[in-house]
């Protein structure tokens, strides 16, 4: 019963609310059906399936709240779940950050967040895709390791103040690493879609295989500051880390890269190159997403950075009220406006530089400056006079996305990754601090 229709879900939620004796009550249903298959050494290693639906009930007495969950839906179980939430609420301390539940909300419509083709994926289909990918690598005498993961899920919400929400989503992730038998070359490809129609395992396998074959016998060049072209898979996590740090409370409290000397935050300040514009839009056809946040707040189109200027920060409801700032929930994905050039076009326009396929093990070093460290991986190449000349050994970098987005040379055409739209970026003076022997 993992995927309930809007009517089925709201019928259960109505019943749950009818059992409530609390001042306020909110009930949320979550369900997922999905599966995965994993391969390594050109053979399947593990496979799994998930089929689960659960109910969370939040009851509130004054400023005290309690949550209970269950995954059976007969009347007695639902009644017990509500009673348990109420018992926990009565024992809880009062929350000084209490905010009343919201009344009815108007949500945007994002029908593209569900694709039937993805929902209909079978274990046989997964095995076929991985099997075909392995066969391509077998034929080229390369070794592949891959992971295919898909899900069909829904979320439904209802509260005692009249709020009502429902949405269904599908998602598909595929990653593949291809290595040469001597262990001297490695390549990677990644894809993430709502709709299976866009998925092409063979194309992704060929990309990873080509990178593996062409990255053999990498040369060591001195670490230092280089012009780099970060492919979307390399840029996405650095940018996500920055977006994840755009919380207004941390900024106002003085512990964020967006905190201002003497107090307050940097909203309204130009912090990046003017070609940097980042927004979120749950109705975007390429990256459709949930149109409501976990606490029921509507997800709208929000501009976070416009032409290099910080336009909005996200916030909790409590902090929005306390700081008298716009009540904007954190989005689940982001879109960086890109240009029209492909990664290949960016390479053609580069006199000297490094092409980076992917960054790995990225960790915060200093939250004050958003300095991160990590390494290049699975395909790093030297560019000269608009052409890839030879593979280079992997580097460790120490760099901040804030500095990166000030040293912008060019922005390419954005592609979908991890629920975001991410362009390839050409950046000058990117800081590599040491070499790695890892392949």
């Amino acid at each position, binding site marked *: 019963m993992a995927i309930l229709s809007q009517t089925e879900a709201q019928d259960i939620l109505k019943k749950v609310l009818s059992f409530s004796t609390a001042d306020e009550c909110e009930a949320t249903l979550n369900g997922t059906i999905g599966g995965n298959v*994993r391969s390594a050494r050109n053979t399947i290693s593990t496979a*799994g399936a998930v089929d689960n639906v659960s109910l969370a009930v939040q009851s509130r007495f004054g400023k005290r709240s309690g949550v209970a969950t269950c995954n059976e839906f007969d009347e007695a179980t639902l009644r017990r779940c509500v009673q348990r939430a109420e018992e926990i609420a009565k024992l809880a301390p009062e929350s000084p950050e209490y905010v009343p539940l919201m009344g009815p909300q108007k949500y945007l419509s994002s029908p593209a967040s569900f694709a039937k083709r993805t929902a209909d994926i079978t274990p046989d289909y997964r095995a076929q895709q991985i099997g075909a990918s392995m066969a391509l690598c077998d034929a080229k005498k390369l070794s592949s390791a891959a992971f295919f993961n898909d899900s069909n899920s829904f979320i439904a919400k209802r509260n005692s103040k009249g709020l009502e929400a429902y949405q269904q989503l599908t998602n598909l992730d595929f990653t593949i690493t291809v290595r040469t038998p001597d262990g001297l070359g490695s390549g990677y490809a990644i894809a993430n879609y709502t709709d299976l129609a866009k998925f092409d395992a063979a194309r992704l396998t060929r990309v990873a295989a080509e990178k593996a074959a062409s990255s053999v016998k990498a040369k060591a060049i001195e670490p230092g500051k280089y012009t780099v072209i970060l492919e979307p898979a390399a840029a996405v996590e650095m940018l*996500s880390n920055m977006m994840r740090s755009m919380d207004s409370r941390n900024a106002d409290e003085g512990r964020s890269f967006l905190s201002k000397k003497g107090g307050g935050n940097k909203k309204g300040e130009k912090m990046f190159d003017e070609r940097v514009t980042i927004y979120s839009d749950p109705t975007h056809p390429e990256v459709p997403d949930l149109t409501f946040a976990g606490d029921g707040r509507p997800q709208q189109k929000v501009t976070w950075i416009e032409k290099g200027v910080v336009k909005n920060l996200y916030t909790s409801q409590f902090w929005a009220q306390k700081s008298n700032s716009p009540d904007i929930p*954190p989005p689940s994905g982001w879109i960086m406006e890109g240009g029209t050039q492909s990664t290949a076009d960016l390479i053609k326009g580069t006199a000297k530089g490094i092409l980076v396929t*992917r960054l790995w093990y990225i960790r915060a070093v200093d939250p004050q400056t958003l*300095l991160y460290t990590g390494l290049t991986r699975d395909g790093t190449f030297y560019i000269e006079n608009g052409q890839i000349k030879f593979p280079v050994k992997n580097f*460790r970098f120490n760099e901040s996305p804030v500095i990166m987005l000030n040293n912008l040379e060019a922005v390419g055409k954005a592609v979908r990754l991890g629920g975001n739209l991410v362009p390839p970026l050409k950046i000058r003076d990117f800081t590599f*601090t040491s070499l790695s022997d890892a392949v």
Partner: protein
Amino acid sequence: MKRRDFVGLSGLAAGALFVPSIPAFAGNLIDPARLLEPGVDTAMKKRLADAGLNAAKSAGATYADVRIGRSLNQNVFTREKQVQGISSTESYGVGVRVIANGTWGFASTNSVTEAGIAKAAQLAVQIAKANAKVQKEQVKLAPVKGHGEVAWKTPIQQNGFEVPIKDKVDLLLSVNAKALDMGASFVNSTIQQVNEQKYFASTDGSYIDQDIHRIYPSFGVTAIDRASGKFRTRQALSAPVGMGYEYLTPKAADKIAGPAGSDVIGYRNSYDMLEDVAIATKQVKQKLTAKSVTPGKYDLVLDPHHLGLTIHESVGHPLELDRVLGYEANYAGTSFATLEWRAKNLPYGSKLVNIVADKLQPGSLGAVGYDDEGVKTKQWDLIKEGTLVDYQKTRDQAHMVGQNESDGCSYSQSWQDVQFQRMPNVSLQPGKSKLSVDELVRNVDKGIYIAGNGSFSIDQQRYNFQFGGQVFYAIEKGKITEMLEDVAYQANTQDFWNSCSAICDQSDYRLFGAFNDGKGQPSQSSAVSHGSATTRFNGVNVINTARKIG
């Protein structure tokens, strides 16, 4: 919905971009009183498990194991003068793993009935047979003798779930009050507790009942200089441990002072949270004005709370046999320490470096009686006098390195996830000659003492790493002189361990813990400890991490 990785591994996770500040835990939220209710008795578990084993065999499995799991968690989170959240959760269900046509299959269910488990067993066999069609390597298990009906329990003195939530809240709020009184700008504190009740049965004739406990108290203190806009944090020097609530009753004998002039106190088998937060608050304010390090080569003196993470990343992970063989190539990565590399007999470290793996050490996170495929646990050498001598193995891996015994390294984070090879406790043995921290520092001419673990990153084959820390002190001519900031060191694993020049003795030895170590696709979390004494490494490259933005 999209999945969130726990902790540990980076790369591109398909997880939601924004995650709550309070971690989500698998399981249903429950009344705290239920944490003390006993689970199903072992006679019933045996009957349920037999239903699964029989169903698997009838469907064509040549091997099957059934894990009935009940995971209980309680977490208390506070900030400054308020409670942020209290959650008590329970997760209960069964995982069935089978071999059919020489291929693994796995399925799980939260329907803990004979019929429910039998159905999961049949599905596991069906999956195994489907995968067998594209399988090229037949599963071959190292033999294990059935243990019959046996039990094991973490030797705790006080079950943390029996301690009233109010006592935990009171402790955490008094920790916060101490920090605020001493001038901290912000403070967060937490107590996390885990109880894994695991019942394992296999067609080898084992019926193993285990009751495993872990606890992790922690805090973070922040100091802000509003005028300059600078802020710094100092995290707790506690370790997550395989103990009960007795860990939070401080004992003087468990406190180990850092080198003279450093202010650092380390903790062994008990933790003084109030003392540590007082020291942390003093240190975090010092960090705001500490001298920025001059980059260059330094001799590093690393305290066990720091070195534990370096051991974890640069020894624990590269010696996981699944990584060595390529099974983690698409995510966590592979390893430089391949079978071919080992055959060259190159030194992993200096002659002082002796590193053992174990699943037995009392108080450690990895201690269990039996692993998740019914193998009795043990201790074994990984590196002996600087030479790599062995890896970490499960039953299906032993034959790949010409052995016929598992090391007991199979673990699954819950009944819903398939078990696979995970790191045991991996520890650096203390020096055999008497050597105190002060004596060790006395011989350092130009060095840095680092306590606590901070930023950490290592490549996918475990060559190049970079580590930060919580507090850094300059050592000049054998003495701690002043606090430093903006310190991180970069090294190559083999260069680093070969530069190991002194290790303090047993009296300085203590455990560090990794509470949420991530690995696998879909990612699973495990908990593991790493013991060491304060250790010196010569001539390590230190960088300055200070930058300027806007």
